[in-house]
């Protein structure tokens, strides 16, 4: 079992899906001979041929629209959006069609597609390459939104997304693409899309986060344990919509404290959703305000300031200490 980085785990899952199901087809810009600008599809066109791994013309609405048509005809298209800031032209097709073809044909047609897209800042990328926009998609009925935070979860969740009978938007945190390696068994096993992942158990407070921010969140939890003797539970949302609230509520029920961490701007970010639901369903269990540690409500800055924008370990730690104040 080889140690692989997240981007390699994505590649493994794609290869596995291509091998297992002839209806799986990858499409996107520069994913073929070039292997994708992040190298997520490297070697796949060579191995599976140009009829399974397609370079498309440069048009994102087209990529989404083609995938919808293909999926409705029984294929399992896995479309790649090249950088996070270029996913917006797909929104019309995703919300007006992908998420509703099943309901607007009474189940006659469906859209088992996956839209893969990079997400987040922190890699010194040019303008528009560092956005976090998961909350826009989480608001769309009929669409699942998934974001892995480790190679293992990238592998299992991507396989699950491809096998899922409904559209899935699959965000890949670019900052994690090569950050850490993990042993990933290429066994074709999907991970469930209806559950959060508890990455660290604890009893003093609950962190909920997703994607790359789990890196800082886990580090903050480690520091809190080490220097403050605080035992923090860390939950990886994994599937961002629909959300598995059972796990979160169970945890907050035990800890009484909740800090949500995400990179996207604060206002109407997905952290609000988690906070709101907990404030409705577990208010009496809360021993402190629910805090959100998030990107600011500003345009993701060019990279000289990107680390000033993203929540730091220290901001997370301090929020935790704040909710722990007696």
């Amino acid at each position: 079992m080889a140690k692989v980085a997240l981007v390699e785990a994505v590649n493994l899952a794609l290869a596995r899906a291509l091998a297992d199901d002839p209806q799986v087809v990858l499409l996107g810009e520069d994913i073929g001979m070039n292997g994708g600008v992040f190298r997520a599809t490297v070697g796949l066109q060579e191995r599976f041929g140009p009829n399974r791994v397609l370079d498309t013309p440069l048009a994102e609405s087209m990529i989404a629209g083609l995938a919808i048509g293909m999926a409705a005809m029984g294929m399992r298209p896995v479309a790649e959006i090249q950088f996070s800031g270029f996913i917006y032209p797909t929104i019309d097709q995703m919300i007006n069609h992908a998420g509703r073809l099943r309901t607007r044909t009474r189940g006659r047609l469906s859209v088992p597609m996956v839209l893969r897209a990079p997400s987040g800042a922190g890699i010194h990328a040019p303008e528009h390459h560092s956005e976090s926009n998961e909350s826009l998609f989480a608001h769309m009925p009929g669409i699942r939104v998934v974001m892995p935070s480790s190679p293992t979860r990238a592998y299992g969740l991507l396989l699950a997304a491809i096998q899922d009978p409904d559209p899935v938007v699959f965000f890949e945190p670019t900052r994690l693409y090569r950050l850490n390696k993990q042993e990933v068994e290429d066994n074709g096993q999907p991970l469930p899309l209806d559950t959060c992942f508890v990455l660290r158990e604890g009893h003093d407070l609950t962190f909920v986060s997703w994607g790359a921010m789990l890196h800082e969140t886990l580090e903050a939890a480690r520091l809190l344990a080490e220097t403050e003797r605080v035992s923090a539970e860390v939950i990886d949302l994994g599937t961002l919509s629909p959300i598995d609230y059972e796990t979160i509520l169970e945890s907050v029920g035990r800890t009484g404290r909740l800090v949500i961490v995400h990179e996207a701007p604060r206002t109407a970010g997905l952290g609000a959703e988690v906070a709101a639901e907990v404030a409705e369903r577990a208010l009496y269990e809360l021993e402190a305000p629910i805090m959100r540690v998030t990107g600011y409500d500003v345009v993701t800055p060019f990279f000289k300031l990107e680390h000033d924008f993203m929540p730091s370990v220290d901001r997370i730690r301090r929020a935790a200490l704040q909710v722990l104040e007696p």
Partner: protein
Amino acid sequence: MSTTTAARFEIKSRSYLNPEGRLVGTPPAIVSDSDLLKRLYRMMVLVRTFDSKAIALQRTGQLGTYASCLGHEATHVAIGAAMMPEDVFFPMYREYGTQLWRGVHMEEILAFWGGDERGTAFRDQPLDFPWAVPIATQTLHAAGAALAFKLRSEKRVAVTVIGDGGTSQGDFYEALNAAGAFGLPVVFVIANNQWAISVPLKAQTACETLAQKAIAAGLPGIQVDGNDVLAVYEAVTEAVGRARTGGGASVIEALTYRLSDHTTADDARRYRSAAEVEDAQKKEPIGRLKRLLTARKLWSDEEEQALIQDCQRQVDAAVHAYQALGKPPRSDMFDYTFAELPESLQQERAQALAEEGSHHG
């Protein structure tokens, strides 16, 4: 040489059956297929009967906003006739002629405009897409389906219709370009009815023809008289045939006219002259086909009477079926959102049903 010619293009325009119902030039083979001509005529009359009934239903509060197809019958019905059953149709929102030909039921169309998703179930037409209200989005689905056919080596064709207004949308152009780049078995029919709600063609684009949009994607484009069922049938048959045999995509501009208001929510008198409509009325498609049939002794007054009665009967039956539909169960709102209802939606569903049970909704 300092200036050379890099490329040359020509857009042809075809018309065989003139407004008087007389044939001009060398008509296509279909003209000797009396059976098909009569089937086309019958369907055109049926769809027009249906159309005026639907408007009446709306006017009397029994239907929501409805988009009439008055004047488009030749274009729509010819498309249906030129397609094979295994092909897939991607409509905009007024191609009832195509849909009826392909097995969609009139009560399904009424249900759609009556605010009821059950109209999209197409019980006898499992393949075709439902109506696409967001203009031009369907053209990409057609290209995507065609891509699936091509990748699976299926000899099937995707056919889609878009309006003159719709040709201004980026999605339309992206679909054309994809169809060209991938060599896809898809046919784009532009139903150019001269108006996009209140916007006349000349405000929509500086193009002389809409067929020339094809040139921007390296596709063949042709213009036909969209009120001439022979010309439309021939052009679509050719394009579908070419697509099926690996010849790639094409664009057909069918010149027609929206004789009705845009929808029942619209009042076209605000923005266009009665004279223009009257003029267009003279070129409408059903009369001219009837004149051809009559002149060729293929059609009698008795047949006409019988047809009218038959259409009326069919439409009435559809209206009854529609009216008997009632309201769908509240749970329907949830049950088609995902293949399997996620936990959070199960809770919302249970809550919604419980509230329905309690005395206020």
